[in-house]
Structure formats: structure tokens, C-alpha cells
């Protein structure tokens, strides 16, 4: 953008017929002229542009945003925001102004700033809840209905996610009976999910009985931790 403003010189003229001749005087000093350009006129934040100016018949040249400058010149600028540069050229013949606007645009959203495209596995781990059981029981507790329903909703929203329900038991009782009990626990959750509309193909079950406890102390807190259906992303 180039704006050139020329000062208007008013030529005084009088049509009076009779005018005493005026002794000729020195011609008035010429009006200053100025140009200011910026190239490119638009940049993304952090980039730089070249600001260039020319003046004539000026004794003082000033750019507001920079300060006093030479009569002609150029300078690299890198403003954070859009800026209109304003130049004033002052001389014996008056002054002239020129402006140049540099537009700064926002950088494009930084190329995939680690705004994690959360993996399915992470989403699964954050969303799906394990279900716990009473001692020697494999029926779902009424208090766990919410967890079961939320899990079902999640699996229906993500039909591409396949998962495994691991049935676990506490350390008490026989190895063999606990493996069968763990299977019933895993299948209790599977049946509830399928009844809630989750496709059977998404679900696999496995029982670990008391073979892979989450907690290894012999107390009720620990045993309760181990009596569970553990939901695992993926199917082996």
C-alpha cells in the first residue's frame, strides 16, 4: 500500500486589475514530499517485513514507531501485532506525511502441538471401569449397575474397540474352583454388556482365578481388590 500525499500548494491569485507591483521576492521553499512502503504488507506473527521510505525537501524525518530516521532508508520490522507506520517529513516548505500498514496474522494452530490425539488404549483406560464382586459370588452387584451401563455406553460409542474381560478372585479357596468362579464373573459382565447392546464380537473373556492378584496381602481390602472383572484393551 502506498499512500502519497502531496501538499497542496495554494497559488494565490487575485484578479484585481490594479495591483501595485510587488517587488519580486524569493520563491517559497518547496513543499516536502514523502513515501513509505512496507513489503510484504502482511505476515504471520514472528516473521519480518521491510519498511522503506523516501522523502524530499525535508530536514527532519520521523517514523512514530521507530523514531527519527534518515531522509531515505529501509529497516526490517517484526511487530507482534498489525501496525500502521506513520512517517512525518518536515522541511522549510512545510511537512508531509505518509503511512504504511503492515498486517500481522495469527500463526496457524501450531502444527499438532501435543494436544494428544488420545489413543484408543488411553481413552479405554480412562473411561472403562472395573467391576467388583462379593466373596464367592459371581452375580453383578446392584451398586455396579452404573459402571456396567457406562462401560456399555462406551463400547457402543467405540465399536472398533475390542476388549477382554478378565475374571479374578481372591486367594482363598481352591485353584481350580477359583478359575471356574472367575470365568463366571467375566461372563456375568459379558452377558450384561451384550444385553445392553454391545456386539458380542467386541468382547472376549478369560479367567485368571487367583493366579494374577492385583494385591497380595491377606486382608479384606486386598481380597476385595482381587475379586473383580478387569477390563483390558484389545484381545489376545
Amino acid at each position, binding site marked *: 500500500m502506498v499512500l502519497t500525499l502531496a501538499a497542496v500548494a495554494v497559488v494565490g491569485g487575485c484578479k484585481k486589475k490594479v495591483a501595485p507591483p510587488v517587488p519580486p521576492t524569493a520563491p517559497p521553499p518547496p513543499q516536502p514530499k514523502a513515501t513509505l512502503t512496507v513489503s510484504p504488507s502482511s505476515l504471520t506473527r514472528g516473521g519480518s517485513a521491510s519498511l522503506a521510505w523516501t522523502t524530499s525537501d525535508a530536514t527532519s524525518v520521523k517514523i512514530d514507531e521507530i523514531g527519527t530516521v534518515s531522509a531515505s532508508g529501509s529497516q526490517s520490522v517484526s511487530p507482534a501485532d498489525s501496525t500502521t507506520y506513520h512517517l512525518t517529513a518536515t522541511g522549510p516548505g512545510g511537512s508531509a506525511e505518509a503511512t504504511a500498514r503492515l498486517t500481522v496474522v495469527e500463526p496457524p494452530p501450531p502444527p499438532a502441538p501435543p494436544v494428544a490425539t488420545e489413543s484408543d488404549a488411553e481413552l479405554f483406560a480412562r473411561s472403562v471401569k472395573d467391576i467388583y464382586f462379593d466373596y464367592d459370588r459371581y452375580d453383578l452387584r446392584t451398586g455396579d449397575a452404573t459402571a456396567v451401563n457406562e462401560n456399555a455406553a462406551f463400547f457402543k460409542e467405540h465399536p472398533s474397540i475390542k476388549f477382554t474381560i478378565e475374571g479374578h478372585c481372591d486367594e482363598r*479357596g481352591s485353584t481350580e474352583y477359583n478359575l471356574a468362579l472367575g470365568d463366571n464373573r467375566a461372563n456375568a459382565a459379558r452377558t450384561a454388556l451384550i444385553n445392553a447392546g454391545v456386539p458380542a464380537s467386541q468382547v472376549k473373556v478369560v479367567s485368571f482365578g487367583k493366579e494374577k492378584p492385583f494385591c497380595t496381602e491377606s486382608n479384606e481390602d486386598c481380597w476385595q481388590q482381587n475379586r473383580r472383572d478387569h477390563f483390558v484393551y484389545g484381545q489376545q
Partner: protein
Amino acid sequence: MKRLAVLLPVLLLLAASMVGQDQIRTGIGVGGERIRIAVPDFATATQDASVAPLNKTFNEVLFNDLSAAGIFDVASRSFYPMGNFAAPQDIKLDAWSATPVKASMVAFGNLGVSNGTMQVQGWLFDTKSPQNPQVLAKQYREQAIDGNARLIAHKFADEIIFRLGGGINGIAESKIFFISTRSGHKEVWAMDYDGAAQHPITHLGSISLSPRVSPDNSRVAFSSFYKGGPNISVYSLELGRMLNFPAFGGTNLSPAWSSDGAHLAFSSSRSGDPEIYVCDANGGNLKRLTQVHGPDVSPVWNPRTNSQIAWVSGRSGLPRIYMMDSDGGNVQKLVDNGYAVSPAWSPNGQYLAFAWIRHYGPGAPGNSDIYIMDVVSKHWIQLTHDGGHNDSPSWSPDGRHIVYQSTRGGGEQIWTMLADGSQQTQLTFGSSNTQPNWSWK
């Protein structure tokens, strides 16, 4: 179900008050009392330097086998006459039958080594039959290594037990299969019946459980996660590798051989619920036996007939022991209170051994102990009383012993006892050793 009012005749050990049929006393002519036997150390027959350690092993193993057999009262060695008893001419019957030895029988002999070959001569004499004292005379020849000294002692012990124990084969050459964690994984292991020669069978690096050796000792069936699963898996002891066996889907547990080796019973959740199935030994002809929702697991065949199967079901809540015909019909409950698991059918078909928390429930944290029940009368007796969690009983082939796992000494370890609960003996130490299974012969 009643507590056994009479002691179990098969046990022999409780002879005086026993009533009912007698399967072990037949032919031994001494009533139900234990036979008092003397076992002087075998003499060394040669000067070879290797004789002494081999003879030491032999003498220890023979003495232990006869002590453990359950039918003998082995006279203390401190009572024995002084001397060297290498051959019949060294034996004065009076000296062995008199106080303090008071032995009815004396087993003696000698062991020698020449040119790397070990030779053992062994005799069994009846001290009450001066006219014709010789009951047994045996001779063995094997390469002179420690394992063979052990083997010959077992063989000679089994001859004595067979001859004096009513014609029932001894168990000194039998094996016990079990699960051990000592490699870092649950693998199938095996050992001699007395705990010697413990060695791994599988190296699957997974979780393997419930080993059951086939009646002919050629294969071990078990349940393993090594291919996902868990699946029924079969290892050939003859080929030293896994055999092909079908994956049925679901959780597959607790295989059990029929005594003819033709069939396996096991638990599978292939239908979505653990049920009892039977199939051929190669996995063919799969047939479902149970139909009730809830855990069904741990089947065992009646080895006398293969026409009945006992198993554990949680169909009514806590696990209880049931019995049905081997086609799935005629279901009856054998144990209807407490927490009852891990049935094992005795070789003669008469008894079930099982693990039972009899007083079960909040405020009654009873121990899990080993019991045996007469399957006809449903009378039972408790065999373990020494604390800890006791589980996974398995009968010896002669029906006189039971091997099981117990935590009474700390971790899970394998113990044996006579089938009346006496002679508790720990066989394994360190790591975790569980789910013992005694071979069929």
C-alpha cells in the same frame, strides 16, 4: 452325612476297632496289626571305593520305604543284635524274634560293586517259621550309580510290601506330579514318591495347573495358559514334548483320566458357563454332562468302574461336592455344607478325599482340611488337624497314602500322610509347590 463312627477298614492302621470288609489284611495272617519288621543295614560285599556311599543310599531308602508303607512297625535299629548280616547263615531267628527286637520279619542282604556294576542280594525271613523262614530272595544288578541304589531299594521294598501287604503293589516306584514355581513360572514337575529326584517336566514359561498323569504313565494332562486359554494340554513323557490337543474355547480346567486311559473329564466354559465335559483321550467325541449355571469343575472318575464322576459345583452358592453317573444322570450331592472342593477318588472306589472348610462363613473362619468320605454311607473323617490351608489331595496307587498341599509350614508345600492322617511328611521346600497328583502305579 455323619461323622464316621467306625474307622476305615482300608486303612488297616486303625486295626483293633475296625469293622466291615477287610481288603488289606487278607492273607497276611496277623490280623489288623502292623507287621513288626527289622531291617539291618545291608552288608558291603566288595572292597570297591564306591560301595560305601551306594550302600548308605540303599539302606536309607529301604528303611524309609518300609517305614512309610503304612503296614509295618519297623523295629528301631538300636535293638538289633550286633554283627554283619550279609546272608542267610548270618541270621539267628531267635535273636530277631526275641525281646527287644520282637520282629516277625527281618529283611537283610548285601550290596557290592565290581567293574562299575552294582549287585544287591536281598532276603526276607519270617522269624516265626524256623522250618522254612525264607519269604523272599531277590537279586538285582544295575550300573553303580546313586539313582540305581535308590531304585533297587524301592524295588526290593515293593517286593516285601507286595508279599506282606495282602498282594497290593507297593508304591516305592511311584511318582508324584505337581506344580512348582521354582523356575519363576508355574510348570509341571515330578518327583519320586518320597520327594527325591524333583525335576521339571514342562518349560512353557506360562501358568500351568492341575497336572494329572495318565494311568499308563505315558502322558500328563494339565491346564495351561501357554496358548491363551487356559486350555487342556497333554505332554508326552515318552516323546518329551507337547501333544496336539484341541482348543475347545473358553476356560478349560482340571482334566481327569478315566482309569482305562480312554477318556478325560474336565471343566470347560466354551458355552459361556463352566460345565463338566468328557472326551476321548485325544480330545475327540466331546460330550457335555452338566447343564446348571454356576461353576462346575474338578471332576474325578470312580476308578473302579468309570461309571461315576464326582465333581465340585457352585450351583447352590458355595462349592460343594456332587456325584453323577458318567453320562450326566443321577446327580446327587455328597457334601452339602461348608466349602468343599478338590475331590479325589480312592483306587478301590470306596472313598473320596477332599478339602473342606466345614465351619464356613462370617465369624467362623475354619481351616481347610483334608477329609475322606465313604461314598456309599457318606460317613466321613477328618485327616488333617495341624493348621494351615490344606488342599488338593491325591491317593497313592495302593490307597494307603494321600499326598496333598499345605501351608502349615509357611508357604504352599507338598506333604504326604497315611490315609488315616498319621505319618505327616513334608516332601517339598522352598518356592511354592502345589496340586500334587500321585501316579497310578
